[in-house]
Structure formats: C-alpha cells, structure tokens
C-alpha cells in the first residue's frame, strides 16, 4: 500500500515536471544572461512591532557575478555594498564592514537575491529548495530554506518576474514579519 502510494507520488511529480513548459534551468540560464544594470526599488517592511509598514526607496546596481549595491535614498540615505563576501554599510558618515564568512546564515540570506540575479542554481540549492510556478512571461520562484540556521530567520523568499527580469522579491521572515521589494529597471535594454 505504502509502496503504491510512493510510486504514485513519484509519477505525479514526474508528470508535473513533464508538463511544466518552463523549468528552473531555463529561468536560471535566462537570468544568467542578464548583463546587470541599475534599477529603482521600493521596499515595504511590515513588522509586527510597528503600527504601520515602513517604506524605503532607492536604487540598486547589480554587477555580475557578485557585486550588488543598494543605495537607499528615503527615508534616510544609506548605501550597502555586497561584494563577494564583504558587506559594507555606510550610514551617517559611519562605515561598517562585515565579513559574511563569519555569519554563514546571514550570507545565505543576502546571497539568495544575488544568486537569483546571477542565475546560479547550484549556489541557491545549497541552502534552499526551489519551486517554480507560472511561465516565462510571468514566473514565481519560491525559495524555502533547508538549513536549520536559515530557517530560524526566514520562512521563504518569493521572487516574481518575467523573462530575465525580476519584478518583486518578497521575504517572509520566521517571525511573520515581511519585506517586499519591488524592482523597476532604470536602463533601457
């Protein structure tokens, strides 16, 4: 009986894969083609402790394969640069620099977006299970952490987009707080 059920499951999953005209590899290779560039972002954070959401806006610049600059303009200027494993944050004339090698869970967290931008499936699958829905013009990729340390921080990341362009990144944290990032490319392509 159990064996039957199991076989059924395997078949079902195979069927799903077979029917999906659009798969993770396709998405990733499409994203990997992306040459990088500048984008406007709006980030909305909903925190249980606050009575209303916080909204930050600014610009992001991605330079493949491993540099991401996030320049927040409102409500308060701040620049974050993620370069390889080094995060530098500049705020109020103060500079902080953190090596993420000492914080693997934080690295996996910030790496989720960078690896998605880079279309690096192997790196993503180290820490997350990937699930893709939709089609090439309107896809949704869901990352669910497999690592206990990351799961303690994060329930899932939902990324949506069309073709090789990401539109939104939605972080749902373990404590129910969430952060929604909407991205709009600045450079004509």
């Amino acid at each position: 009986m159990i064996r039957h059920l199991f076989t059924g499951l395997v078949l079902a999953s195979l069927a799903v894969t077979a029917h999906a005209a659009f798969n993770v590899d396709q998405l990733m290779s499409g994203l990997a083609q992306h040459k990088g560039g500048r984008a406007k972002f709006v980030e909305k954070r909903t925190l249980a402790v606050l009575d209303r959401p916080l909204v930050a806006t600014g610009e992001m610049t991605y330079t493949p394969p491993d540099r991401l600059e996030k320049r927040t303009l409102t409500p308060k200027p701040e620049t974050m640069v993620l370069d390889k494993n080094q995060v530098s944050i500049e705020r109020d004339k103060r500079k902080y620099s953190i090596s993420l090698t000492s914080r693997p869970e934080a690295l996996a967290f910030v790496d989720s977006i960078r690896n998605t931008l880079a279309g690096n499936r192997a790196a993503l699958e180290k820490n997350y299970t990937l699930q893709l829905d939709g089609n090439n013009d309107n896809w949704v990729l869901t990352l669910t952490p497999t690592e206990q340390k990351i799961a303690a921080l994060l329930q899932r990341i939902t990324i949506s987009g069309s073709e090789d362009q990401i539109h939104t990144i939605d972080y749902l944290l373990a404590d129910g707080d969430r952060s929604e990032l909407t991205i709009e490319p600045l450079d004509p392509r």
Partner: protein
Amino acid sequence: MTPRAWRTLLLWLLAMLAGAAVVWSSRFSTDISFFLPAHPTVAQQVLVDQLKEGAVSRLLMLAVEGGDAAQRAGLSRELHTRLAALPEFVSVQNGDARSEDAARDFLLRHRYLLSPAVTPERFTVDGLKAAISNSIDLLASPAGMLLKPYLTRDPTGELVELLGGLSAGAQPASVDGVWASHDGQRALLLVQTRALGSDTDGQEKAIALIREQSAAAFRSAGVQGLTLQLSGPGLFAVKSRATIKREVTRLSLISLAAIVAVLFFVYRSPRILLLSLLPVASGALAGIVAVSLAYGTVYGITVGFGSALIGEAVDYAIYYFVQSGRLGLDSWRQRFWPTIRLGVLTSVCGFGALLFSGFPGLAQLGLYSLTGVLTAALVTRFVLPPLAGSNIQIPVPARLGLALHAGLRQLRTLRWPAIGLALAAFTYLGAQRDQLWLPNLSALSTVSAADAALDARLRADLSTPAARYLVVVAAPDREAALQAAERAGQRLDPLVADGVIGGYDSPAHFLPSATTQAARRAGLPSPDELQRRLQAALVDSPLSANKLAPFIADVEAARRQPLLGRHDLGGSGLALAVDSLLLQGANGWSALLPLRPAGGEQGVDIRVAAVRAALAGSDALFIDTKGQFDALYGDYLHQAVWLSTAGFVAIVVLLLVSLRSPRRLAGVLLPLVMAVALVIAGLHLAGERLQLLHLVGMLLIVAVGSNYALFFDRIAGGASLDTATLMSMAVAATTTVIGFGTLALSSVPVLHAVGVTVGPGALLALLLSAVFASREVPA
C-alpha cells in the same frame, strides 16, 4: 711549590670561591631587555612596559591545521574548554557563538552605562523622538536585522551604537561557528596567559600546557593529521632562551676544545695546559661577577660571549709560557710584559668604550670582556709564575722557526698587493657608505625568519595587526587613567568625524570611568517620567509607546544597577581588550588608545601632524611605535659610531703616549685600519647584513689586533723577533681567531656579528702587521 706559591694559590682559590658564590646567586636572563634602552624616553618607556608587562606580551595565537573544517571547529571548542578550565590562562577566545552571545548580552545588560550616546538630552522628548525614529529608519535597512529583536528593549539603539563603536576593527573570519583563517584552512584561538610576558618560565609552562592539552584533545577526538601551530611573544621568548642556552654551551665547548687541542699540540704538557686555562677561567668568572654586581642581571648572550673571551684571555698565558721559557721570569717581565700590558690596555679601551652604551646588552658585553681580559692578564702576571715554577721549557721546533721566518719574508713581498686591496676596500666602503648598515632593530632579533612569517600569518588571520600609532595617557590610578582616556577620546572624536583617522580603541569604550558611568546613570529618567516622555515623543511614530514596557523596565534596572568594574568583565573578550589597553606600571597606570588608519588614499599611514594638533595642550602622548623602534635603533647605532670612535681615539692616544713616536704609531695602526676596511668590505660583498654589532666589531678588531701589531712594533723599537716570540704570536692569534670565529657560528645575531667581524679581523691584523713589519729581523 714554595710557601709563596701556596699563599698565592690559596688567595686565588678564595677569590674564585667568592666569585662562584656571586655567580650562584646571580639572576640570569635571556629576555628582550637585552635590547631595550637603559635610559628610555617617556615614549620608549611606554613601549618597554608594553613589551615586558603588557597584555599583548601575554597573548598566544593558536591555529589548528589539517583535517576537515568540522574536525577543526570541534577541536577548537574542545581546546577552548580545556584551556579555559586551567588557572594558567586568564582568557581563551575562539570566536565561539556562545561567547560572542555572552559578550553581546553583557553589552545589552550594561548598555546605559557603556554607551557614549547616553546623555540626559537623549532621554528628553526630543532626544527620544530622534533616537527612536533613527532606529525605525534603521529597521528599514539591511542593518535593521540586527536591531529588530531588541527594538522594544532598546528603541534608542544603544546596542547598535556600542557594537558599531567596538567592533569597527576587522573581526577574524569564522567557519563552523569558530574563528578561522581567511582561507578557512585553520581554526584559530587567542589565549592570554596569567604569566607575564617577561616571565619566561611561566610562558614556557603555559606553552607546554597548551601543547599537552592539544595533544590530549587530538587523542580524545581520535582524529589523525591535525597539528597545532602556536606563536606569540611568549613563544619567541622561550625559543630565544633555548637558543641562547644551547649556544652558550655549544659555542663555549667548541671554542674550548679547539683551543685545548692547539695548546696541547704546542705545549705537549697537560700541566702547562691546565695552568694556561687558569687565567681564562678566572677571567670568565670575574666577568660574570662584575656584570652581576653592576647590573643585577646577567644576560645569556653576555655569557655566550665567553667563547670569544676564552680565545682572547688565553693569549697572556701563551706569551708567558712560550716566551719566558728561555728568558726566565724576570727577563720576561722586563722585556715582554710592557708590550703585553699595552696590548691589555688597548683591549680595555676597546671593551671599555662599550660601557657607556645606552644599549644594555652592549654595555654588559663591554664590562664582561673588560673584566675578563684584565683579570686574565693579572692572573697571568701574578698568580701563574709562582704556581708554574721556574723551569718551564716549551719545545720550539727548529723546523717551525724556519717556516715562520720564511712565511714572514713571503708576507713582506705582499706590501703593494695589500695596499692595493686595502685601497679598493676603502673605495668600495666609500661608495657604499649610505647603504652599509641595516637601519632597523629587527637585525638584532633572535626570531627566525620562519617563526616571524608564521607569527605574521596568524596575526593577519586573527586581524590583530600590531598597532603602529598609539595615544598614551598616564595617571596615578585606574580610574584617573580611564578619565584621561575619555578626555583624549574627546579630542580624537573630531578626527574620526573628519576622516583623519578611521577610528580608535580605548579602554574606556569597554570600561568607562566610574565618573562617566555615574553621570550616565544619573541622567536616566524615572519610569513614570520616561513613560510620559515616550507618549509625547511617539505621537506620530509607527512604534507606539505602549509596546515599550521592556524599555522602561530596562532603564529602571539600569538606574539601580551598580557601576561596572574590571572584575565584572571576568575572562571575556572585553576583559582582554581592557587589559591590553590599560597598563599598570611601576609609576602608575597608563591607558593606550591605538589609532586605526582611515584607509583609502592614505593607506596604512596617518596624518601625524593633524593628530598632534588635536592633542596639543593635553597630557596625552602620541607615539608612532614603528618610528620609535627605528629611532631607538638609530640612537643605538649613532651612539655606537660615537663610542667606537671614542674607543679608537683612546687607543691611539694610549699608543702615542706609550710608543712616543708618530711613525711607530702609524706602523701599528695602519695594518689594523686596513684589516677593518677589508673585513667590512668583504662582509658586505658577501651579502652579510651589517648591523650595530658589526660596527662594534670594527673597534674590537683594533683593540684585539693591536696586541699582535705591538709585537711587530718591537722590531721598530730595536728588539729582535726570535722564533719563540713568533711562535707565541702565531699560537695566541690562532686561539683568538678560534674564540671569535666560534661566535660566527652562532645563530644569535649579536654574537654572530661580533664573531664574523673580529675573527677574520684579528687574523688579518696579524698578517698585515707582518706584511708591514720592519725588515731588521735576524734570520
């Protein structure tokens, strides 16, 4: 033996016993104070205290290598547990999350005493509004992740303030939750010993314990192929002591064995051989006694110099036995003693010049050698004759006589080539004079290149670069030192804001003065008042005041909290930081504030003038440590040039007064000066890194070599140079070359430099004196 001989022997024995008693109770040391200035400036004193007693001198860096990352992390934790349990270690850090969390909890618990942002203004309605709205803005940023869990306890963001201020310096990387090297291949630990850095025994014990515990940890984990690497000032001290101890024994034995072999070959008599060693033993003992009585501590390197002293001090007995045989004692005293005495005096001038050096090691070498040579000469003159008796015949083989005279004639034909060679040497030295001498103190260090490289690697991995720029404040007690550090910090803060410096550390960051803590505590409002102000401050805020009960509770707890003291920090990383930066010396306390460079265009340098301007008018002292060490060595070098010149002038004056003839003076000096030039040019050409001790060696070539030149001068004085005299000179020169030559084998740079200079120098002095000796020699 005659009654007089017995009396002499008895007196000598008593003197030796007294000397042995002094040596027995002497303190021997191999530590770095050999190199540290005897009369330091205020800035140098800070560095000396730091090197000898500072927390930094008690730090040992450990690296676990081999195996896989998980094994290394496991062993790092195991080793941490084992070492932390031992009373020999004050603090053991391996970056483990538990201890990091403990440090963070400590900061969180005491944030209202520790945070520099805590002022009465911060707790007004406007202050709260600004601080809390800043925290909320921060929540919207990536850095906000850090703050979020603490928002309701710490809405003004004191923890962020503290962490931002404290850990601005780079942290070591981490793999599997413990510190690791940047490439991830080594797990790292940082250990502070209870033993002081200057307590070499304590350091040795601590290092042995670490090795023992790591071996046990490796065994119990059952893993193969893992190794422990260790470095730090304590290890250098232990290794340096072992090297010096080993070399003192080894070099003395080599030198003694070779000299005994030569002497036995010449004397063919065990009794005369033993008698010859009497002045040597007396000299070596007297040297140590004099140093012990004058300085209180005898450096191992000084004792190591004994191997050279043996070679030099045995000369007098050689002259006595070889020359007095045919002449008889009285005739020898009349004819040869004045020459020997003059030689002793020139040696005394040379070694005596070193006594005035501010470099303690050099002054000791001077006193040791001076006393040794003088004692050996006196024992030869007054003790040896009655003990030896009158009928001593040292065989002088006729064949040897012929060979020596033939050699002498041969040497005389080399005058022009010798002059040509010497001129070439002088020209070379003239051309190279600016790059002859190594300009830094590391040239004298006993630390091997491999050990230094390992140390540098571990230091880079642990991100603990040696702080180059320091601001130092002194005060009579800890509290006053912390207050002074806070005042200096206030002058440095604008420099950080202007980007002149990247930041600075201060013991007051980790442990503010009681005054400051009390002021911060006094500025905290009561719960009702805080509640009222929060309501007013947060009217338009997304964070409502009624969620901040934890904040009000924490502030109230802080108001009732006792002030923090050093004991509250325990053995944490914070305690380590305070201990490294707060130093109790003989004359009170000093606080160190290492400055971090701003980076960018300026790289690792700091605009020194701007820092000095900011500190002007305060009692804070700004020190560029690298500059200080370079200046220290520069002072030593400068002084050594001066002293060598003075010693040389003293020898010249002595010779002029004794010889009463400028021509004879020139005859004695010329070969010596040529020998010095040839040796230094030769060493530099051979790639030897010339330093201070080579320079001193130049003076010693003149001081020691003049002994032989003076015998040749006897010809110019009308005396003949018979075979026995020639033989005694040849043997004496051989023993001296053996003595100094043995030092050249040493891996201790101080000893090696003297040996490699004076050994060949003495030989050249003899040969060149022969080359330029007058012709009136009976065949």
